[in-house]
């Protein structure tokens, strides 16, 4: 069922992770991504994994929810693994069959690439699982606000992102509804050759586009009716505040990066 897609979904909660300032979480996520690329040893991966598990435990996110989010990526992960496994050059051959050659370097690289993708994606999922889309856009807008001096339309960008995020569940629901309706009329979306299946999507896509445009129109009208006129001079109901928690989070993040660099130096 489409409704069960968890990509970008927010799980409401009241844990220390949920209560962090969205800016902190955004910055830490960026730092986390950078940290994963700094990892230079197996010990480093273990450390990042341990950190991920800790955050999961504190945020009360079930590992099952994370794994479910990773499901759509199986293809990319397998693809990356195969590419790295068979196309890495090296002299330390482990196994050879005709043109296929697996080297020790290739194996090592394949495993570390897969680990990297898994950790990267599940780490970013943690951000969306524990932060409401509205809070993310709010934080992003604040973080990007220095760019306003360079005439980057930060308000508009964050508004667009906010609307896009807001409408993902609505559009999924809508797709679900239209899919049900067309299936009830005997639409067959699952079988057939590729061109047939692409053609079978038309009855789904056309009503979806029509309704998306209709919704956009209605939203624009509703915003105009309430005199929305862009960013300048707008005040907010919820102000963002950093607290001691955010300080602790930054310290832990710094410790993680220091740990990774140390393990890399030590070669563990």
């Amino acid at each position, binding site marked *: 069922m489409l409704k069960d897609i968890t990509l970008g979904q927010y799980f409401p909660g009241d844990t220390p992770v949920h209560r962090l300032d969205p800016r902190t979480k955004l910055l830490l996520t960026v730092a986390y991504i950078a940290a994963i690329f700094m990892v230079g040893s197996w010990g480093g991966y273990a450390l990042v994994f341990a950190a991920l598990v800790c955050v999961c435990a504190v945020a009360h996110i079930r590992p099952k929810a994370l794994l479910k989010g990773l499901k759509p990526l199986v293809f990319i992960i397998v693809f990356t693994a195969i590419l790295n496994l068979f196309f890495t050059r090296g002299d330390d051959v482990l196994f050879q069959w005709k043109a296929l050659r697996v080297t020790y370097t290739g194996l090592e690289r394949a495993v570390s690439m897969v680990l990297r993708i898994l950790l990267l994606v599940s780490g970013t999922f943690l951000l969306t699982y524990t932060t409401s889309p509205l809070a993310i856009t709010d934080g992003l807008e604040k973080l990007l606000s220095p760019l306003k001096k360079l005439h980057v339309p930060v308000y508009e960008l964050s508004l667009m992102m906010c609307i896009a995020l807001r409408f993902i569940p609505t559009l999924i629901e809508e797709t679900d509804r239209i899919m049900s309706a*067309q299936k009830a009329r005997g639409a067959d979306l699952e079988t057939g050759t590729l061109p047939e299946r692409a053609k079978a999507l038309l009855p789904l896509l056309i009503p979806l586009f029509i309704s998306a445009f209709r919704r956009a129109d209605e939203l624009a009208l509703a915003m105009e009716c309430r005199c929305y006129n862009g960013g300048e001079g707008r005040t907010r109901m919820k102000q963002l505040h950093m607290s001691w928690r955010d300080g602790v989070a930054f310290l832990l993040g710094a410790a993680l990066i220091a740990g990774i660099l140390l393990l890399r130096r030590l070669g563990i």
Partner: protein
Amino acid sequence: MSLIELRGLTHIYSQGTPFEKTAIDGISLTIDAGQTVALIGHTGSGKSTLISHLNALLKPSGGTVLLDGQDIFASKASIRAARFRVGVVFQYPEYQLFEETVFADIAYGPKNLKLDEPEIDRRVREAAAFVGLDAGVFDRSPLELSGGQKRRAAIAGVLAMEPDVLVLDEPTAGLDPAGREDLLARLFRWHEIRGATILLVTHDMSIANRCERLVVMAEGKIVLDGAPEEVFAHDGQLLSIGLDLPAPAHIAKLLRERGLDLPAGIYTLDRLAEAILALRGKGAGPC
């Protein structure tokens, strides 16, 4: 012989996540061929979830759905067969229109049935006539039609598949009173002529009381099931689950409370008028 039989049907949305929600809870129900049944319930009582099981759109978390005694989830072929035998018209079906012309849109279902051209043509014309759609609009884009016409075109798209069971989820929502009456009359005519089973999902009692049988749902369970007069006799229970009585039944109830000796089982305007006239004939009461 029961046409549709539900046995202990349960559906849980998002099972295993914090959003887990039991929409329907152990429902058992049999519907005979040729019956007209109204499924009534408050918003969120599980009506729409229930009907999505009848043509195998949703897989039950527990229990079975039998069509003519056969489990519809037995195989891919049986699922597909159920889709064609049980025609479901969802809420606001006009949003499913997509073809370039009204004709092509109504023909979408029959085409999926792999029928030949003359048969498709016959079915489209018949279905359009049934819902009161003029042949003059066949070549227009369905998006140019008025709201009421769109609704009719969408319903015709399901009728054209000539299903044995027609399931309609709030078919008259958002229509004006005249359009509502006309559409309902046409649907019941379809039932009379084709002998098809009709399951009408609604929370409007004035629509429900035209069916032979009412099934009332609350919080995922069936709470009342029977002929209209039996169900409307439980007026207290209906009101307590947030449902209304049909206006004539309500008036009869109020008159009875004022001391008029009206018989039980009044739920249509005609009956109410008859009962009041009968009282007047007896010379009892102030009317």
